[in-house]
């Protein structure tokens, strides 16, 4: 078994502020890892630096055994960034955006192949947007645009998916659809790193959870099943009768586990 992502003592400093403070994270092939944590805890920064999109200021990170600068097999990676909309100042159709997910598999100057078209059609079908393929992305709702971003990653047929809050702004039905898509990927042995605020229907798929707090990894292991998403850090429920878990900087379900 090989290792998809391997970060050792990863540090990110932006404008003198430490955003990531020495994170170790290894993701083996076929694992489904959830990255959890409050807003601003560094989840996006962590996955962006796993991919080399955000340079590290200390430590190392490897993609399939190579540092990002010397990694060549980018078709093995499918990245869904955290976005509010698909963006761009010129109209682009859903199909055009999804097809751009094939870029790492296409040779410069070559025409689009039948395999490209098939993969794009399959990805559109998977997220239920085949009937909107010819529409401009800007005419879709926020949740539908999120599905376009997921389809773009699917179209590349990668080995490892890095999804940054794919469920943000997505309704219950679409979340279930995403859960089905993910479980299909998991069955085929794909690697998944998933940033989420609440796991919801994705919970049963997760093999491991990593919790960040202020740029530090505070938990790495079993996903939070029993206590559920409500105990996650950043979930701003006020429970006056309970001791404030934030004081220790640890989410309450981690404390509960450690006490047990």
């Amino acid at each position: 078994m090989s290792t998809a992502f391997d970060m050792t003592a990863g540090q990110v400093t932006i404008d003198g502020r430490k955003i990531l403070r020495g994170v170790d994270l290894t993701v083996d092939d076929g694992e489904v890892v959830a990255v959890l944590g409050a807003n601003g805890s560094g989840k996006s920064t962590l996955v962006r630096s796993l991919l080399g999109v955000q340079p590290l200021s200390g430590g190392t990170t490897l993609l399939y055994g190579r540092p990002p600068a010397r990694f060549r097999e980018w078709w093995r990676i499918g990245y869904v960034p955290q976005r509010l909309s698909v963006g761009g100042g010129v109209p682009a159709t859903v199909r055009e955006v999804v097809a751009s997910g094939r870029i790492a598999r296409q040779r410069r100057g070559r025409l689009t192949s039948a395999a490209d078209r098939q993969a794009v059609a399959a990805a559109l079908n998977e997220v239920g947007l085949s009937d909107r393929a010819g529409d401009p992305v800007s005419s879709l709702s926020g949740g539908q645009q999120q599905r376009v971003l997921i389809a773009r990653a699917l179209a590349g047929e990668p080995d490892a998916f890095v999804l940054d809050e794919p469920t943000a702004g997505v309704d219950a039905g679409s979340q279930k659809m995403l859960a089905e898509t993910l479980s299909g990927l998991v069955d085929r042995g794909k690697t998944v790193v998933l940033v989420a605020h609440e796991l919801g229907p994705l919970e049963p798929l997760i093999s491991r959870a990593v919790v960040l707090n202020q740029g530090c990894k505070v938990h790495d292991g079993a996903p939070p099943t029993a206590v559920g998403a409500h105990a996650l850090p950043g979930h701003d429920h006020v429970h006056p009768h309970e001791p404030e878990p934030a004081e220790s900087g640890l989410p309450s379900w981690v404390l509960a586990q450690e006490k047990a």
Partner: protein
Amino acid sequence: MTIFDLDFMRYALVAAVMVGLTAPAVGTFIVQRRLALLGDGIGHVALTGVALGFLTGTAPVATAVVVAALGAVAIEMVRARGKTSGDVALALLFYGGLAGGVMIIYLTPGESTASLNSYLFGAITSVDSTDLWVIAGLAVAVLALLAVFGRELFVLCQDEEVAKASGLPVRFLGLLIAVIASVTVVVAMRAVGLLLVSALMVVPVATSQQLTRSFRTTMALSMVFGVLATVGGLTSSFYLDVPSGATIVLLALAGFAVALGIGRFVRRSRTGESTA
């Protein structure tokens, strides 16, 4: 007598077609990248280049290409470092380029700001056969580069982070689009002048956006509109005896107004159909 009987008009028409094709093609990527005013920034910097040509006694077009390319690379580097947003970086170059050009031309013996006029506002009818070869060569190079790198540039201009995570050479592509844009600006300078250059990169794209849904058709249609504006503007300026650069740009803007109306009408009837 028609315009085709005059050598200088034949040259001007060929140049107009070249400019009409290339400026909107490049412009589509720039607008996609949300840097619609990049052409203006480069145009202002190119003015310093033109003035340097006068000062050093070299061809202003050559110095303009070099200085504009350096300016575009500077914009790209400031933007890529992320400390200054793209539009602020552009604004800084606007002022620097214009002030630099005026100052250098003042320091050049025997020249005054009047020498800059044909570069500021365009003088397409002054294109001779040598100019035409240069313009045609540059235009072909620009279109060829866009054809080869178009797919990658689309991803870059759509979402730079995704481009990085797809293993694309983002720094190279960012510089490529900046340099392509500056070459285009200098080519289009002859037609409409540096102050109006950006109009040909942005207005046809904005026009075609009113009518299209995909990136590909937006680009193709903007090139059609670009040629219509340059050739139509040049021809009518000849018969009406008015400045060609301004006519070209006003025609492009008129086209935009018409497309805006048609686009509204089409969209309304489309939604009407789907609800009916």
